[in-house]
């Protein structure tokens, strides 16, 4: 049986190699192991979730198109990795997680949320089954500390061990129709057989690491979790192969938005529940219990008072987070995310609006001094191309 990945022995070696890493933690933003690579490429860097992260290397549009048409690689080392192990690991994860991981097949991956008792969202996350009673929770960078505290707090009374391994792991996301080819040929990691939303461990390059067929772009792709040293090596191999384009957080957001994926902080939050976000299919109501189940069951039954809807604008004006949505001159909601899309020629928004609004309804969005007409549509503006 797989006993999970042990990186503790490598921890000091990794940090020694990146001695600056500790210094930056004390006085400035954190930096991933790939910071020097981003700097060498002339990336435009900005703080995000306490890290200095690359927003773009050349242009957001170019990088976005590279992912849709070929292959892009993202440094997502800022994300959090939390291991839950122990005799009651499955029971405990089912208690804090909305999706159902009962008797999960080894290496199966689940998307879902952790909720507050009142139903609001703590975070959205992926749960990887890594062993008989061992789960890897991959959480948003901005929520690592909050999530770890929440998980530990709620683990009292369960026979489990919680290990926050976020500082021991770095991560790459390799995304696009040519991702499989890139990973197999540039890295020598076979992945053709890896099914969508499953993972495997691989021992290669003197290390055991995790590869999954997952991503946040709507394209086929893989995520690799490994030591800092190996991730730098894999990044170099990918770029040297000329099969991938380095891509920053700028296009990561435009890509996910086009295919209707939520971003915690905008489409999910402590006040936006999965029911309001249209994500209740990731909440398994026939589980006996999970934190927040009662609250969102009630909300689902009664219908939420507001919910997320897509809006397609008639012209090119661009809706942005916080802009008001109006119907007949009355404010009926607010934009959570908006962009002029890159893969489709239109401006679209996702907005939290009164539940009375239906698909096809005409609304207006207030953009600075004027209002612009639009229509309520589904939140997916571009079709996903997953390998299912």
């Amino acid at each position, binding site marked *: 049986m797989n006993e999970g990945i042990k990186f503790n022995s490598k921890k000091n070696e990794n940090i020694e190699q990146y001695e600056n890493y500790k210094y930056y933690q004390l006085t400035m933003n954190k930096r991933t192991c790939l910071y020097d690579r981003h700097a060498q490429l002339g990336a435009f860097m900005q703080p995000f979730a306490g890290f200095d992260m690359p927003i773009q290397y050349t242009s957001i549009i170019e990088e976005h198109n590279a992912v849709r048409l070929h292959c892009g690689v993202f440094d997502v080392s800022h994300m959090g990795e939390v291991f839950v192990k122990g005799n009651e690991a499955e029971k405990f994860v089912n208690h804090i997680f909305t999706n159902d991981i009962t008797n999960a097949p080894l290496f199966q991956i689940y998307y879902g949320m952790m909720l507050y008792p009142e139903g609001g969202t703590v975070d959205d996350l992926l749960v990887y089954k890594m062993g008989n009673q061992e789960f890897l929770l991959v959480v948003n960078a901005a929520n690592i500390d909050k999530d770890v505290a929440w998980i530990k707090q709620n683990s009292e009374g369960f026979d489990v061990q919680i290990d926050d391994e976020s500082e021991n792991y770095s991560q790459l996301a390799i995304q696009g129709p040519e991702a499989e080819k890139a990973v197999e040929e540039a890295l020598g990691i076979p992945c053709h057989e890896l099914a969508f939303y499953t993972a495997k461990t691989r021992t290669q390059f003197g290390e055991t690491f995790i590869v999954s067929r997952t991503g946040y772009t709507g394209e086929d792709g893989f995520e690799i979790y490994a030591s800092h040293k190996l991730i730098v090596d894999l990044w170099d191999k990918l770029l040297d192969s000329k099969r991938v384009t380095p891509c920053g957080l700028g296009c990561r957001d435009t890509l996910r938005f086009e295919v209707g994926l939520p971003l915690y902080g905008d489409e999910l939050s402590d006040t936006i529940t999965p029911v309001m976000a249209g994500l209740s299919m990731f909440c398994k109501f026939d589980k006996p219990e999970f934190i927040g189940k009662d609250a969102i069951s009630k909300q689902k039954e009664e219908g939420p008072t507001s919910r997320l809807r897509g809006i397609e604008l008639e012209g090119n004006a*661009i809706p942005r987070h916080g802009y008001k949505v109006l119907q007949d001159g009355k404010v009926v909601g607010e934009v959570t995310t908006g962009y002029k899309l890159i893969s489709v020629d239109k401006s679209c928004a996702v907005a939290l609006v009164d539940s009375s609004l239906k698909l096809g309804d005409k609304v207006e969005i207030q953009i600075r001094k004027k209002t612009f007409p639009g229509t309520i549509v589904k939140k997916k503006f571009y079709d996903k191309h997953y390998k299912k």
Partner: protein
Amino acid sequence: MTYFSESHEYVRVEGEFGYIGITDFAQKELGNIVYVDMPEVDDEVTAGDDFGAVESVKAANDLISPISGIVIEVNEALEDHPELINQDANSNWIIKVKLSDPSELENLMDEEAYNASIS
């Protein structure tokens, strides 16, 4: 003669008219420009007030007018091709204005001073 503001707009003065745009430095900072929100002909602009916006992929950025006057012409090519500003910010001005108070130009920088300010 071209004058520059601290918020990276320029006004190229030709007689009583000024062509207002954003500088090459500004377009580089913004990245891909995907939309230009422009005023209409006959609108008034006031020095120091916003007269529209230039939008990059991620954010809307207010355009601040360096001078006061009346909008005579709007660069309509930017409606369908906002990326023209990325290609050539100096040639692709945004609005043409009839100046109401040329003395305002004294508050702006010349090219040398502007280039020094961004280096």
